[in-house]
């Protein structure tokens, strides 16, 4: 199979970073969370910044960096890695530039953020003020008051705002080989809430990658919870856009949390809500690939944090006959996780399962010290 596009999911524990390498040469990074504990030799999570820098191989930028939302497990470390335009302290030469920043509206309007989340919000606000290098996903009206507070008219920034139910401008299936449909954040959610719930208002995208007329559909689930996902599927079905919930590859939401399927964990297997069941049981194509960006499924039953084995059980059942469920920290094996690479070509997706010969591994790094 000729590979045209490539998705790379990095093993970061319960954290996200997915790079999309387009056949056109463009690169998109969705989330950046360098969670590795660099002082702990037993930490098997990848050294993200080192790996990304190595892969960039001198290229100093990404075409797009998107943050699905501003939780730590999606942004941590980003203030040390990216060249940020809003403050000189983030502008050293070795930092990686962002041509276009994608954020949900929450990343503009939310207050009380700390650390990296605050830095990214400042950057997003700066870019929106400047009117370039940014795309905000939101119902436009939601941003009116913030913009007016800055002395900027909504109309002058409308071209930088994309509402749910639309394709992201600037990406064309026949020209770029991909189009992105925006599922979330959508209006009903943010309008109804005073408190911004970042997981619920996570950016959820559906990408259609095209190679020689063969489409491969990828659902990027962000960290959306079951209420949001249920609504996404319901609204999309309501509008008759079944193709936008059809998937060959799914980046499962929220690190395999049961809460992204339904309200109850269940004893053995989480029962999804009606429309979520429709998404996974009716709209997955053959030999589907489900990716859980998470730790290994824990044996500790009482762990409240994802991943949950009941959710895993549900997902694995969905791909039992044909397809595969992959956990980033277990690929290719839990003892030595590596980035999970999915090549997309004329035969749709294919997980790279190359085996590295021992000699190649041995000669790629210095040998241990020898001698008396």
């Amino acid at each position, binding site marked *: 199979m000729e590979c045209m596009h490539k998705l790379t999911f990095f093993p970061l524990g319960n954290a996200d970073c997915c790079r999309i390498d387009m056949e056109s040469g463009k690169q998109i990074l969705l989330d950046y969370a360098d969670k590795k504990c660099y002082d702990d030799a037993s930490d098997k999570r990848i050294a993200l910044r080192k790996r990304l820098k190595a892969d960039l191989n001198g290229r100093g930028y990404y075409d797009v960096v998107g943050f699905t939302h501003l939780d730590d497990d999606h942004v941590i470390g980003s203030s040390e890695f990216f060249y940020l335009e809003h403050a000189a302290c983030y502008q050293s030469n070795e930092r990686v530039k962002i041509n276009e920043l994608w954020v949900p509206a929450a990343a503009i309007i939310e207050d009380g953020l700390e650390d990296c989340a605050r830095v990214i919000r400042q950057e997003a606000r700066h870019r929106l003020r400047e009117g370039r290098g940014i795309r905000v996903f939101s119902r436009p009206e939601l941003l009116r008051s913030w913009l007016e507070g800055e002395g900027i008219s909504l109309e002058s920034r409308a071209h930088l705002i994309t509402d749910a139910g639309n394709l992201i401008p600037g990406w064309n299936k026949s020209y770029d080989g991909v189009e992105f449909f925006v599922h979330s954040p959508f209006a009903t959610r943010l309008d109804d809430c005073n408190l911004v719930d970042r997981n619920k208002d996570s950016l959820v995208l559906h990408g259609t990658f095209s190679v020689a007329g063969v489409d491969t559909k990828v659902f990027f689930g962000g960290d959306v919870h079951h209420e949001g996902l249920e609504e996404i599927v319901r609204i999309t079905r309501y509008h008759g856009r079944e193709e936008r919930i059809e998937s060959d590859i799914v980046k499962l939401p929220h690190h395999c949390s049961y809460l992204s399927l339904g309200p109850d964990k269940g004893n053995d297997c989480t029962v999804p809500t009606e429309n979520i069941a429709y998404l996974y049981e009716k709209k997955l194509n053959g030999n589907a690939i489900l990716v859980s960006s998470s730790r290994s499924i824990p044996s500790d039953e009482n762990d409240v944090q994802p991943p949950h084995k009941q959710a895993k059980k549900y997902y694995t059942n969905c791909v039992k006959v044909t397809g595969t469920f992959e956990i980033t920290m277990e690929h290719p094996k839990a003892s030595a996780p590596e980035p999970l690479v999915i090549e997309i070509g004329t035969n749709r997706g*294919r997980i790279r399962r190359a085996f590295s010969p021992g000699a190649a591994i041995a000669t790629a790094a210095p040998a241990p010290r020898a001698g008396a």
Partner: protein
Amino acid sequence: MYMDAPGTSAKADELIVSKARTLASYLESGKHPYATLIDIRRDAASGVETVVFDVIAELSQIRVNEVLERERLAASFAPADDIFPEVIALRDDFPWVPHLNQREVELPRSLCLYELPYTTLRLRWTPTVFVERIREWLSLTSEGKLHQDDQPLENIFLGQFPPLIFPSNFLTSILEGGNDGNAAIRFGVYAVGDSPEGITGFVVTDPKMHQVSMRPDHIATAVIAPARKHGLIRKTPQNLRQIIEVMQDVDIDLLSILRQRLRQWKENDANAVAARILLLLIFPKYREEGSPPETWELDISGFLLLDPVREVGAKLGLWQVMPGGTLAMLIGGGEDHSPDIAVQIVNPVKQLTKARAALFNGTQPNDQKMVMVGVGALGSMTFENLVRKGFGTWSIVDDDLMMPHNVARHALTALAAGAPKVTGMKQMIETVYEETVVTSASRVNVLRPGSGEANLTTILGEADVIFDCSADVAAARRITLDCASNARRLSLFLSPDGEQMVLLMEDSNREIKLDALEIQFYRMLLTTPSLQGHYASVGSKIRYGRSCRDLSAVLSADSISSFAGIGSKVAERLLLGDSAAIAVWKTESDTSISATWESPRRDFRLPMEKFSVVWDEGILDKLRWLRGEKLPRETGGALLGCWDLSRQILYVVDVTGAPEDSIERPTAFIRGSKDLPRWIAETSRITGRSVEYVGEWHTHPNGCPTSPSNDDRKVFHWIEEHLSIDGLPPAMLIVGETELRWLTTEDGNGVAWKFPN
């Protein structure tokens, strides 16, 4: 969902077969991320040990063949480690795909993983490589790419079965005639082998490839099935009944067809009842839905029915064998006992064609009309190489008989002794592949063709290329100068001791002719010290017969075959291009062979009153350079050349500069003689006495005509006096500013020749 693997469960430490143990422990170590040990099994009776494991292969989401992400396999290792470990897919619905091994039962499927023999693979067998090959096989199979596009579709039977070799047009003629065509109904087959028990193969009658005296001893008959996408027979039939059942699936009533054909054979040919039957089932296949059927030789399944026609007819209920052996026809037909007719698989293989011979050699087939003059040691082997590469259609010309001593260094063997070499070569070469590539074999001497002259003239006249391997300068000259033909000429010959080989090739427009190339080869010897042994050490000779000339040089067969290999390779390459070439190969003491190439120069031919002179750009350059160096004084030297006295041609090979003791003045030149006799002797030795002193040359200053002065005429007279002692005509050359002038008579002004621009 998974079938049982062979043997019964065992513990890892019970394993005895080393590879089974290595694989099990490798899988258990977890070093391979995509392979997991499931079970270890052992068959106590056979000692076969089986490792059951899961592998995860690299698979696309769209799959031609439904391989799953995780497949369970069982690898069985024989205790002697003398055959491939058999790898079977345990999933009970593992698809029917290309590259499966034939088994007696259809499931589980057995993966055909390797093209190399096990003895070779065993040298580098590691569990890692083994697992990786399985994963690769699954991955390629899922994408339908285990078959490359240019590869025939899979045979339904693999393995070591006796070959049934058939002509390349055989399938076409059967398919054209259909199940009722003559070609399908009956054709003769020879069994090949030491004895009826030791039959190693079968060959469909092809008189060209076999001695006509051989009589077909088997009957073959073909039945064509409708075209389909996949192979049909998935397990090995053991008897005729099972084959009949397979054909029923495609609506072919094989029983009736056989009954009808057997009846017909019996009626038409009393001998037929003793013959055994080869049954050919032809399954035209198409690769994709809607594509036309393809008829590869691999689409034939061949079965030898182990009973003769007499017994087969009886078991099919056609007749009854009476005491005494007569056959009594059964009215209305008797019972069908086809399960009692045992069958053995034969492996159908197509005869070699010229095109495929070229393919196997990595070259393109070529139909240039070649004439090979001389099929001695070097010629026969070079010729054979070119034919095996699919190069040329050939006429061969040689008047020699094959003598026993020739066999020591010839493509032919003693089978051809006493016969003309051309006859033996034609017979041998015609069995290389199906097509006739030797259009004529003429036992004729090109120098004295006699009654063969008209035929020879035609052959040479129609040729594209005349390949001279006669090892005879006279023959080469005759081919070059006396035959009306536009053919490009080349010569290939050995040094007398067989340790050097020379190739001379005309350009495709024949602007530089073979005789001129020969002359330039002599000059190459004079200027290339490493080659100066070419004629120096003439090998010893051995007497093979009673006549004075029954002597043969000592030449080593290995050197000749090495040179023949180079000769055929280079000749082919050069014949596909346009340039002329001169090259010499030489065996070195370290067994390597060195090559020296010389750039051919354009030749000039000047017909004159008594003879013609031939020289070339190389000579002209040297004369003009020597003249220029000495201006305004005159200079000169000796002319070195060789005479073709039968055609009155003087070939100028080289010129010497002025010996040290010469007198060179603006208006006079007196050639000295210091070192000249030694150099002329050396020239003669290096060139095998081909090149000698043939006259004098000198220059005239700028502005001075090249017409001979009185002094010049005196010099000419002096030359004539001396050369007449040797019986040779005199020649003198005067080189001026813009022309040169040849003098061949004392009176007259000779012939001037302007330098080309």
